[in-house]
Every structure is written in C-alpha cells, then in structure tokens.
C-alpha cells in the first residue's frame, strides 16, 4: 500500500464569489485518524462533498489509494472504499434500522433483477448473512437496538440515529470513513460513548482510516493522531492537537484577533 491513502493537491471550490476551498493540500496516511477542524464556514464539509463527488472541484486533484478520483461520481467514490456520514442526519426515516444499514451495504449485495425476484432461496441466504453482519455491528454500538432491527428509525432518539448512520457507513468495510460532526445534537456523555464505540470498531479493523470533522475539541484531542485546521478554505495549521491548539494563527481564527 502506498504511504498516502487520500491526497488532495491544490483543491479549490468556489460558490459564486465565495471561496470555500482555497488550494487545499492534504495528505492522509493509511490507518490515521485525522481531525479536520476550523470555524464555521471554513470549508470542512465542502471538502467532504468534493472528495465524495457530490460537488465537482474548481481546481486541483484528489486521489485515493493511488487512483485519481477528482471527477469520480459519488457512486464510484463509494465503490472505491470511501464511506461517510452527514452533518445533518440523512437516514431514511420511514425505513427500519436494518434497511438503513443495508443501504450502506449496497456494494456487497446482489443487485440483479433475476436474483432478487426469482431466486428467493438464494436471496434468503444472502439476507440472513447481511442481517448477521448488521446485527453484529449494531451490537457494538448499542446492544439494545439489536431487538429493534425492523422498527422504523423515525422512532429513535438522536444518539441512536447517529449510531445507525455510522453503522450504515461502516457495514461495507470501507478503507476510509468520513465523519461529519458526529457529536452534533448530542450531550457530552453521549458523544464520549459514541467515540468509544467508533474506536472499538477500529480496534477490530486496523485498516480503517478516519477523517473526522468536529467542533467538540475534547473529542478531537482524545481520538485524533493529527489535526488539520482550516480557515476560509485554507489550511492554516497541521500537526498533533496540542501543537495546533497552541498555534497563534489557530487561536486567532477561533477567537478573533485581540
């Protein structure tokens, strides 16, 4: 494997006159946990959206595991091994926990019309195997939810929805997981619990690389190997959390110039 899993070079994205990403260079090594931090509107989510193909870029390149994915569709990015969660929960509320997790399992499920409609015995075997995988994953995050796999997620509290969203992103065993503010809308204790669960999944799968966007600095300090700080779409600092937290430019970006 190459020493760099995901690499952005000179990546730019403009919305009209607003420069959301300004010639961003970013390199993520395999197995790293990277914290992507910065004030609101500094381009963190935009970076996720450009990297996953939701937005096209206005300059620069993104490569993943040695292949150029700058112009790849969201579908191709997923198939290459990148999964994500969304800042605002994007679960399908009327669908069950199991269904939502299976949406994330798309590439490992047989999609043929004939298989799905006519070969019901084979479909049932695949269904049971997929159920086992989903259940095992949910067990890590919240064992109580394993008894409610066929209930709609609309009835679940925020923390459980977050958990299901992370299960949906993890079930296909991606190489890179992009977490967009997993703590949004949750209490401090809930966030701690969720992070413990994510670390537990990673402990079993050492190949998993994570980029996490987060405002809760306690989370960033505890779980990341390295941080990248953005401001106005530009990288203003990079390094271990303690180092960037002490950086004068970073303090100014967050607190304003005294």
């Amino acid at each position, binding site marked *: 494997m190459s020493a760099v899993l995901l690499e952005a070079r000179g990546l730019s994205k403009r919305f009209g006159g607003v420069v959301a990403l300004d010639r961003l260079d970013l390199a993520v090594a395999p197995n790293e946990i990277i914290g992507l931090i910065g004030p609101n509107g500094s381009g963190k989510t935009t970076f996720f959206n450009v990297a*996953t193909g*939701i937005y096209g870029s206005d300059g620069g390149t993104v490569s993943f595991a040695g292949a150029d994915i700058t112009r790849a*569709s*969201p*579908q191709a*990015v*997923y*198939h290459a091994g990148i*999964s*994500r969660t*969304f800042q605002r929960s*994007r679960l*399908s*509320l*009327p*669908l*069950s926990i199991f*269904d939502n997790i*299976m*949406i*994330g399992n*798309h*590439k490992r*499920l*047989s*999609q043929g*019309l004939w298989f*799905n*409609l006519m070969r*019901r015995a084979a*479909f*049932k075997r695949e*269904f049971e195997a997929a*159920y086992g995988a989903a*259940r095992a994953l949910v067990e890590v995050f919240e064992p109580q939810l394993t008894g409610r*796999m*066929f*209930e*709609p997620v609309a009835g679940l509290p925020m923390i459980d929805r977050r958990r299901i969203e992370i299960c*949906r992103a993890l079930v*296909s065993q991606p190489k890179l997981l992009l977490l967009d503010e997993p703590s949004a809308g949750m209490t401090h204790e809930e966030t701690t619990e969720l992070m413990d669960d994510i670390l537990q999944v990673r402990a079993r799968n050492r190949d998993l690389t994570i980029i996490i966007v987060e405002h809760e600095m306690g989370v960033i300090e505890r779980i990341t190997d390295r941080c990248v700080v953005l401001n106005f779409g530009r990288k203003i600092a990079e390094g271990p959390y303690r180092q960037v937290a002490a950086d004068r430019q970073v303090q100014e970006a967050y607190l304003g110039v005294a």
Partner: protein
Amino acid sequence: MVGEGDRSSQASWLPGAAALALGTVYVIALLAVEKQSFIIGLLALAIVAALAANWLGWLAPVSRSFAEHEDRLGGLAIVAAVAVAAFFHDNHFVLLLVVTVLLYTVATLGLNIQFGYAGVLNFAGASFFGIGAYTSAVLNAHTAVPHLLVLLTGGLIAALIGSLLLLPVLRTRGHYAALVTIAFALLLKTFLEVNDVLGGPQGLQVKGMKLFGWSFNDNLSIGRIDLSFYLSYFVVSLLLLIAAFVLVRRLERSWIGLNLDALRLDETAASCFGLDIARWKITAFTLGNFLIGIAGALFGMVGGFVAPNNYTFADSLILVSILLLGGIGNPWGLVVATVIVVVIPEKLQTIQEYRFLLYALLVIVVLLFRPEGLLPRPVRRYFPGWRP
C-alpha cells in the same frame, strides 16, 4: 415458513381471515342489491363499521395477521374472489365490474412500483393502459399472434413507448417529472385522434380473447347452469392479478425494493452509497408501464372496443387517486381502494355524474385524516414471519 404450530409467530391468521370473510359477504351484498336506498344504507353501514372497528382496536390484529400470514391469507383472498364470481356466475354486469376491479388493480400495482417505491409520479397511467388496449386491437385484427403473447406484447409496447419518456423524466424531479407525463398523455390522445390507421376518434374494435381454440366471447354452460362469458375473462384477470401481486411483493421485499425506497427518500445519500439512480428509476418506470400495458391489453379484449376518449387524463387521475386512497406502497390497500373507486359509482347510479366530485372528496378526506391511505404501508419485512 410459518406452520400451524409455530410458536415463535405471535399473530394469529384468524383475525385476517375473519375480516376477509366479512368483506366478501359485504361485497356480494353490495353487488347484489339494486335499490338505491339499500345501497346508500350499506355504504353508511360500512363507514360506521370501519370507524367502530378502528375505535375498538380491531384493525390492528387484522393488519398484523396479514403481515405475518400473507401467503395463507392471500390464498383465502383468491378463494373469496372466486366465491364472488361464482355467486354472480350468470350476471354480465357484475362480472364485468369484477373484472374491471381486477385489471385496474393490476394497473395500480404498476403505478405503485413507479410512485410508491421509486417516487416517479406517472400521470399517464391511463395512456399506457390504452396503449395495451390498442396493441390488442391491432394484433388481434391483423395477426394470428396467440392471445397470451398479445398480452405480453401489450406490456412490452407500453414499456417501450414509456422509455421515450425516460430522458425527460430522469432529467427532472418531482413535480416537473409529473408534468412530463401529463404532456405525454395529452400528446398521445391527440396523436390517436388524428391518426386514421388507429381508427381516429372513433377508435377500434378489439376481437375477444381466444385461448387454445377456446373463444372467450361465447356463452358457457355447465350442465344446465348458464354462465356469463365474462367468467373466462375473470379467470384470466385473476391469474394476471395474482402474478402481478407476487411480482410487486417480491420486488418490495428485495434489495431492489430497498434501492427504490432509498432513492425516493434521499437521492444524495443514496448516491453516496453507490446507488445508480438512473438505473433504478428506469427499472421501476419500465416495469410499472409493463404491468399497466398488460392489464390494458386484456381490458381491451374484455371491453371489445378502444378509443382515445376511454383513456384520458381524467382516467389517469382515477388511477392515482386509487393509489392515494389505498395506501401508497401497500398492495392490499390497492385492492380495497380499487373496489371502492370502481364499484361505488357504478352501483350508486344517482351519483354517476358526480363521480369525479366523489373521488376528489374522497382523496381530500383521506389526505386530511389518514395521509398514508386507508391501509398504510407497513415497515418492510423481507420474509413474513421470519425471525432471527
């Protein structure tokens, strides 16, 4: 499979069977009664009974037993349909009504794949139904194609003509895609009216069905009992409905059904998990039109006649209102809703002219008080009664 002594299964099949039996008796009574005041009384009774059952909490066990014992109750529903047909074995009018219900249900099952699952609103349902009927008219008149193949061809041609709409439907979303289908319905009607090859505004005769040398339009008799010739059409229509029902059920209870739900609810999220949006919308739209076309092809043979005015935008609205009324995404709801929408105006002659007013009222009342339809779609269970 759920057997007789299966302890892990919690719901009994009996409430479902009881509801089915009551419903069958009621439908027979409604179809048999002629006097307008009796019919109004029966309808009022149904509304009161439904509200009372809801109030007493009797509907939940019924829906649970349908959810867990669908195969068995589906078998009973077939028996019920046969019982209704047997009761009216010599009554042309009622049997035609029953056949209409069966074929409209097949058509709405097709719409259900498109709108209920994939979220593609098709306001040209009646047009694709009509395309099926025109296919029968032309093929039965000019070729010797076996009539079962004619039905299949009707479906294929509807799907093929529908594929002309794919590009605009895929490039637009929501209301705009619906507008594309409305435009298509108007275009098709105009095209049929000015095209003399297809009979122009007068339309075409459709020759009746013949299967294996058996002509459906001859009256039958068993011993000394005379049977309506519609009974043959009833059998074929029922078989078609069973096939369509099983197909739609399997589709919903598969990864494809999940894909369709996922792209309807959130295209962006679905894309981020590898779903090819265009592929699945095309699958749903084409499969839906195929079902509608087959139903139309058979309906053309039943009615013996097809004209542009039979399949207008207004008829498409009726199909959509059945979908809204029954419960989007629930095939059982579609059966109930089709019975209501097709049978009531035929029986209540006094309101015939106001039928569209009735549909409009019905849809508004349902959307206000029960927005998910009479029988809301339950959460997907891939195998009814399956437990980990």
